[in-house]
């Protein structure tokens, strides 16, 4: 298995996650790696990106000098609103999220476990940034995809049997996409759906902190 640079891993994950988008979807992308997914939307597919601070139709960053201080993304970076976009207040924004009007959210993880539990908002005693909109997104979106590097920098697993960190939400994760594999959360446990080119199911299992269900044939990730 070739060693990948962190930037290459991020691009592989973002490209594969973008293949989950369907035409017409309303989608919220989390801050960090998930934001990259917007760069790889497949040809012929149009999605409405929801920005939790109050609009749908999030577009690319404006050219230098073109910034509008009243148009920013959920990370407060200058953004744009595409034609057909719409602005609203925070109550409407979270009604969209919780009310079943968001087809998909793609978020990062500190830990995700075999029950579909997610921890991504705090590390007690170390970082307590707050959950922002993450708890609402994970509970409310019709489909939750976790896009994350397979392990921490030291190689310890992020995909585990039981999350040890405080949860963002319980049992809401549907799919996990990493640079090594695509894993579906099922009632029976974590089902290995795809492996990256040149990676074996055994190698994925060795880097995962929970038992994987490995079918006889596992597809190769298209990236």
């Amino acid at each position, binding site marked *: 298995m070739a060693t990948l640079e962190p930037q290459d891993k991020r691009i592989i994950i973002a490209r594969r996650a973008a293949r989950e988008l369907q035409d017409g979807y309303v989608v919220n992308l989390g801050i960090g790696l998930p934001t990259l997914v917007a760069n790889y939307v497949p040809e012929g597919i149009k999605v409405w990106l929801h920005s939790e601070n109050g609009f749908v139709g999030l577009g690319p960053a404006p050219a230098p000098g073109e*910034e509008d201080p009243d148009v*920013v993304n959920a990370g407060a970076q200058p953004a744009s609103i595409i034609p057909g976009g719409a*602005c609203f207040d925070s109550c409407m924004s979270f009604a969209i999220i919780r009310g079943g009007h968001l087809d998909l959210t793609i978020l990062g993880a500190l830990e995700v476990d075999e029950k579909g539990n997610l921890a991504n908002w705090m590390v007690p005693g170390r970082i307590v940034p707050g959950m*922002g909109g993450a*708890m609402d997104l994970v509970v409310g979106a019709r489909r939750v995809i976790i896009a994350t590097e397979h392990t921490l920098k030291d190689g310890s697993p992020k995909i585990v049997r039981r999350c040890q960190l405080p949860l963002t*939400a319980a049992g809401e994760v549907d799919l996990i996409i990493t640079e090594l594999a695509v894993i579906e959360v099922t009632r029976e446990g974590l089902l290995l759906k795809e492996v990256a080119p040149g990676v074996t199911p055994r190698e994925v299992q060795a880097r995962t902190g929970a038992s994987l269900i490995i079918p006889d044939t596992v597809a190769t990730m298209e990236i």
Partner: protein
Amino acid sequence: MAIVVTAGEAVSRIEDGMTVMTGGFLGVGTPEVLLDALVGRGAKKLTLISNDTAFPGRGNGKLVEAGCLKKVIASHIGTNPITQQQMKEKILEVVLIPQGTLAERIRAAGAGLGGILTPTGVGTEIEKEKTVLTIDGRRYLLEVPLYADVALIKAHLADEAGNLVYKRSARNFNPVMAMAASLVIAQVDRVLPVGSIDPDQVMTPGIFIDLIVQTGGEQVGDLRTAR
């Protein structure tokens, strides 16, 4: 009719120890001029209800640095290391609430509701000490209303009747906070004569607004350098 006053006159109505809501999301749609006046007045022991504490030197970050606050109720403080430092040193009490729950608790206060039921936080530590109700087989947390003594909000335009129009993503928490406080002060870029805003275009009805502070357009800082 809302009354047009200076920022100093407006914040002189805010007493130490009060609970104050401020509109804005990471400093966008925040009434910066009102916050400057509040800092200038040397306000103390306020409880702040807001989405976040923005950045050092910007938005609610100014209130944190100036030591105006004893408590913050927010969804996110991760962009302001000074808030986190004050929390560690126990100078500042911080209560974190999911953003959608924060918005709906404020709305409940303004809408005369005794609370709201939300699935957000079920099965997490947010659930602790909350009433859980099962409706049609799904579990919800009972979240109670969140009121303030004063709401400080920011809009783009007002007319002399207090009707407000917001711009782009600067709307965020401003409309809902305008309904949930005893005294509502709006900082606006421009005040227009009554009748200048078409009733269909009004985003917050003027009946919610007590005082207006006109700034004639404000410097919000350079977004490209904001973190």
